[in-house]
């Protein structure tokens, strides 16, 4: 006789009358495959943990964003925010969709050049550009977004001594009512600093003002801050036109659009509370029609969206290493992916889905990573069906700021696999090995015998 299907015994206390503080019911549908490739096969072939990216998801999302913005404003250019995910394969996908490169360091600048991005299609942001990096950017005719006066003067010096001109914008910080204020980057709008900087640039012989730039923050949860900020940039552009007779090539509104992740402390799922992309696009584009005449040409709207484009295309396959109970009886799991790989779990409740069928009962459980460190907690009070040692799980929406912010700490960084548009998996970054990690180390001669 066939035996009954087994599910780990679970008893749950009913919390009647209380709002379910763990948010809306989530489906217990397992995620058995990613873009048609079985999770079990991926883990068997490439190991666990394993980052998996979907080319199709990236392209679909980028194309959808382009449609939404282009149907509202005639000239739109995306610039891929390298720091969000600068794996070569990922950048190549966004560049092939027409995106420029948005970089914030010489390292990222060099990566973009290595991939063959044309110099004038690189936007160079950031508060810490070295003289060498600035010189490279000037020679490549990249668009340099000046962050502060010291950089402005240094750039004048560099261009003067090279006898070259540079296309520049300034980063402008504006008060949009978000706390904490993001006023540490760029020149302030309200106190007149931005206008002073623009006057200084206009007076220089080597710098040409081609744009205005802002980036008001990341994971902005409402549309109003964008409307306010873009309105202020437009007012500044109109002032430039009136006072200095300068027509801009572009207005760069930065990134900041949210992804589908739910933030810690949010009870409802992100998708239930966040405005739609169309609403963000309305808020960003509407104020642009207040721009005073720019001859025939309207300035291009540049977007440096990062997480909104790639988060949903990233998955992290992980394996349950242990099922535990804490001293108060609470369920806890140890999985093989930790905070070393998911820095983002400090502020996100990454959705975790089993990769094989489970029972329908859900327990509240803490999900710990494998590090022998108290900070290594992926999520507290996650609502998960009963899992057992060896089960695979998939952490969702992990494409942004993970593969760039991960740490080689205690253990290796795993492989990254891209499922290409034809549905086949390709390793785009190998798993680290001991030789790779130690290849940069040296032991001074006096210590060598000790290690024998």
């Amino acid at each position: 006789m066939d035996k009954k299907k087994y599910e780990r015994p679970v008893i749950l206390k009913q919390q009647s009358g209380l709002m379910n503080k763990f948010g809306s019911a989530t489906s217990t549908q397992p995620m058995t495959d990613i873009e048609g490739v079985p999770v079990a096969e991926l883990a068997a072939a490439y190991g666990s943990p394993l980052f998996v990216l979907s080319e199709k998801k990236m392209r679909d999302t980028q194309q959808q964003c382009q449609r939404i913005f282009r149907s509202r404003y005639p000239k739109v250019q995306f610039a891929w925010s390298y720091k969000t995910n600068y794996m070569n394969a990922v950048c190549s996908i966004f560049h092939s969709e027409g995106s420029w490169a948005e970089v914030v360091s010489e390292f990222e600048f060099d990566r973009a050049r290595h991939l063959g991005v044309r110099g004038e299609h690189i936007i160079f942001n950031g508060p810490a550009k070295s003289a060498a990096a600035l010189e490279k950017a000037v020679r490549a005719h990249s668009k340099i977004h000046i962050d502060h006066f010291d950089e402005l003067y240094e750039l004048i010096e560099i261009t003067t001594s090279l006898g070259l001109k540079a296309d520049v914008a300034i980063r402008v910080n504006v008060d949009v009512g978000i706390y904490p204020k993001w006023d540490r980057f760029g020149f302030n709008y309200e106190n007149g600093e931005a206008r002073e900087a623009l006057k200084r640039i206009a007076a220089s012989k080597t710098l040409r003002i081609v744009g205005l730039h802002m980036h008001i923050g990341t994971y902005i949860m409402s549309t109003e801050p964008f409307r306010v900020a873009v309105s202020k940039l437009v007012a500044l552009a109109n002032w430039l036109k009136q006072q200095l007779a300068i027509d801009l090539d572009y207005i760069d509104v930065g990134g900041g659009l949210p992804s589908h992740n739910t933030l810690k402390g949010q009870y409802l799922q992100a998708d239930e509370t966040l405005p739609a992309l169309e609403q963000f696009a309305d808020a960003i584009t509407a104020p642009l029609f207040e721009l005073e005449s720019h001859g025939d040409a309207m300035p291009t709207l540049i977007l440096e969206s990062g997480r909104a484009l790639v988060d949903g295309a990233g998955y992290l396959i992980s394996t349950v290493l242990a099922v535990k109970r804490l001293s108060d009886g609470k369920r806890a799991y140890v999985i093989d992916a930790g905070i070393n790989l998911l820095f983002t779990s400090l502020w996100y409740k990454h959705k975790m889905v089993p990769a094989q069928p489970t029972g329908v009962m859900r327990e509240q459980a803490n999900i710990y990573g494998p590090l022998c460190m108290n900070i290594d907690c992926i999520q507290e009070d996650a609502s998960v069906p009963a899992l057992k040692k060896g089960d695979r799980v998939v952490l969702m929406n992990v494409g942004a700021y993970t593969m760039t912010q991960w740490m080689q700490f205690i253990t290796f960084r795993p492989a990254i696999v891209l499922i290409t548009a034809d549905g086949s998996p390709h390793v785009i970054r190998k798993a680290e090995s001991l030789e790779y990690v130690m290849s940069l180390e040296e032991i001074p001669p006096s210590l060598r015998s000790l290690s024998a």
Partner: protein
Amino acid sequence: MSSTQISTSLAVSENGFLFLPTTGETFTVNETGRFILRRLQEGREQQEIISSLIDEFDVEPVDAQRDVLDFIGQLRQYHLTDTQ
């Protein structure tokens, strides 16, 4: 091997709904949990419960052993066992 005393007042319905009249608390329990609970209420020994679980369900002996102990831990956590 030990047996675990379940609170005598605990009422278990056929569909896995539990009620503890002394505190007014209610619980839900899944099929395997109900299977174990019923046998604990009958005063069965742990080892005997593990064996019948293995007979009835598609489960490896080590998993059954571990899960029964874990389940009793859950009952204790909710004060559903009588402490001697």
